């Protein structure tokens, strides 16, 4: 039982990170209606920016802010030059998928060019200490991830529900034509959405990198977990991303422990989850029913 609890808590800690990545995906989905297959690579890229600043001697928190700012710019730029000109993702899913895959290749290659293929090590933001909860040791790093996630969700909630800007972003996501007819500069808001999503991805990267080692394929598996999280939670729901993240984290940590076939494939439960949810409840737990429209 204690063993189970230990694994579960580890999973929930991981889940917080999946949820962060999921938040970025949800922000983009909510503001543009598309799934960004390059989200993970963009997060990897901005995590490298954090690492660079940190290894140049900046304090970690400043480096993270710098990385978020860098990520924001990359995201906004990517939207302006690559995503926006392609057009409506609902009308041309293939073109948009190809563009985000092009981004995937491009950003990954750029990171390899700049930082090489060796893994870098990054210190855990909350140190290597542990605390004992219910007789189970939990790393501060995991607790920190949950807290940071909580703060991020709160900020996004405030943005979307209590500011004019957030209201405008929601209007754009729901009906961009109507939004532009009330005077909302739609392209600029979409750019902002991409920037925000990339900034959030930075935080996810900063939490994952100490675990996996910071390399250019840092995010490729993590992205699938992030997708699983938002598929379960609903593509357009912030709360869904969080709940989904925790569930996916817990499943991917617990299942391989008890079911041998998943031992080398912690990704498999996430995959099965994606498939099952899309088949039986495509809008997810908290999403609005509109997925089927695509």
């Amino acid at each position: 039982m204690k063993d189970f609890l230990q694994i579960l808590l580890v999973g929930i800690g991981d889940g917080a990170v999946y949820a962060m990545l999921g938040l970025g995906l949800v922000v983009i989905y909510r503001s543009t209606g598309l799934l960004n297959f390059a989200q993970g690579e963009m997060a990897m890229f901005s995590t490298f920016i954090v690492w660079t600043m940190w290894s140049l001697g900046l304090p970690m928190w400043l480096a993270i802010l710098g990385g978020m700012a860098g990520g924001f710019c990359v995201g906004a730029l990517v939207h302006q030059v690559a995503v926006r000109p392609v057009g409506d993702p609902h009308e041309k899913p293939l073109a948009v998928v190809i563009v985000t895959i092009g981004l995937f290749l491009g950003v990954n290659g750029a990171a390899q060019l700049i930082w090489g293929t060796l893994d870098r090590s990054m210190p855990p933001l909350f140190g290597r200490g542990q605390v004992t909860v219910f007789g189970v040791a939990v790393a501060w790093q995991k607790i920190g991830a949950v807290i940071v996630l909580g703060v991020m969700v709160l900020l996004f909630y405030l943005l979307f529900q209590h500011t004019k800007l957030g209201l405008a972003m929601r209007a754009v996501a729901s009906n961009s034509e109507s939004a532009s007819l009330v005077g909302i500069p739609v392209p600029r808001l979409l750019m902002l959405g991409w920037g925000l999503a990339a900034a959030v991805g930075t935080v996810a990267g900063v939490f994952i990198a100490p675990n996996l080692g910071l390399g250019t394929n840092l995010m490729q598996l993590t992205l699938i977990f992030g997708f699983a999280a938002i598929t379960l939670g609903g593509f357009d729901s912030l709360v869904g991303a969080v709940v989904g993240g925790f569930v996916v984290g817990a499943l991917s940590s617990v299942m391989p422990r008890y079911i041998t076939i998943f031992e080398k494939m912690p990704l498999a439960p996430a995959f099965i989850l994606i498939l099952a949810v899309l088949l039986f409840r495509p809008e997810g737990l908290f999403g609005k029913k509109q997925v089927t429209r695509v």
Partner: protein
Amino acid sequence: MSNTVTAGASVHRSPGDWALKVAPWVVLFVILAIVPFQFPSFRVEQFCFWMTLAIAACGLNLLTGYNGQISVGHGALFGIGAYTTGILITEFGVPLFGATVASAVVCFAAGILIGLPALRIKGLYLALVTLAVATLFPLLLEQFSAITGGSGGLQITSPQLYRGEMRERPIRLESPVAGLENDQWKYFVFLGITVVIFILSRNLIKSRVGRSLVAVRDNEVAAESSGIPVSQVKIVTFGLSAAIAGIGGSLFALDQGQLYPSSFTIVLSIYILVAVVVGGAASIIGPAIGAVFYGLFSDVIVQQMPDRIQPARAVILGVLLILLMLLAPGGIVGGFRTLQAKWSARRSSTHSSGLAVTGPSVTGPPAAGPEVTA
């Protein structure tokens, strides 16, 4: 070349036009026939790999280009074909090309399995599921290392007569024709299979079935109401597409003689997709052109670059993909067709310069994004 353009655009069919239409194909086949004798062996080996890629891209094109179902997971189907071939030959002593046929069948079934959820999942979401399949596949190979050899790889062997006794030896495609090297022989075998597959898919697309594929892509509801069994069409297309990709994978296995999970990552899936969109989705020959493009790019151009900037290859491909979607969403073939149409429009307008009415005029600046002709 410009003569063939007019022939293609012309409505009239005279024997001369017909000859102009056939001529490029004759030239192409002559070139294809000479190629293995003009290049060193390692190049001919590379050409064989390009053909396996072209076959897989042809399969993906049926699905994505003509039927509108997006798959980012065809690398996994290619891998299933490769490993099925490897295992059948090594474990069960199936003859080499017998294994290819069996791989096609296995992949057909796998495609149907993946296609089942595709009945309910579309567009971006289907891309998501297939992406997950592609990411999962190499992990599956490592999980079932008992039959796949895991990350240590699968050496494909068959019983062969060696120094007077039958032994398990690495497979080889030996040339039965005097004067043809082994790699040249392999080249022609692969070429034959590739050509047959492309011709068969062309015939499929031109048939009634092919038109129903396109009808389903363009408007499912309309297709349904005009009596097309949409679900069946989608599922069978998935199966066929997978089977073709599987044949590509099977040839890849015969070509390489050994298989590693690292060859079948998401990156492979992306490259197959690259071949389709660069060449031109929803054109028959497009995937072949795209595969050659990819081959030239990664086996020739990239090799010229200094080692330090090798990753630039991914950057270049990525940027290229994006530019392509923005500027020429129809790929090389689509771009060529557009030029051809413009050219013939200009010709006809100069011919009829006395008349006020010309081709359709475009109102205002073009809309923000070009359309995907896929």
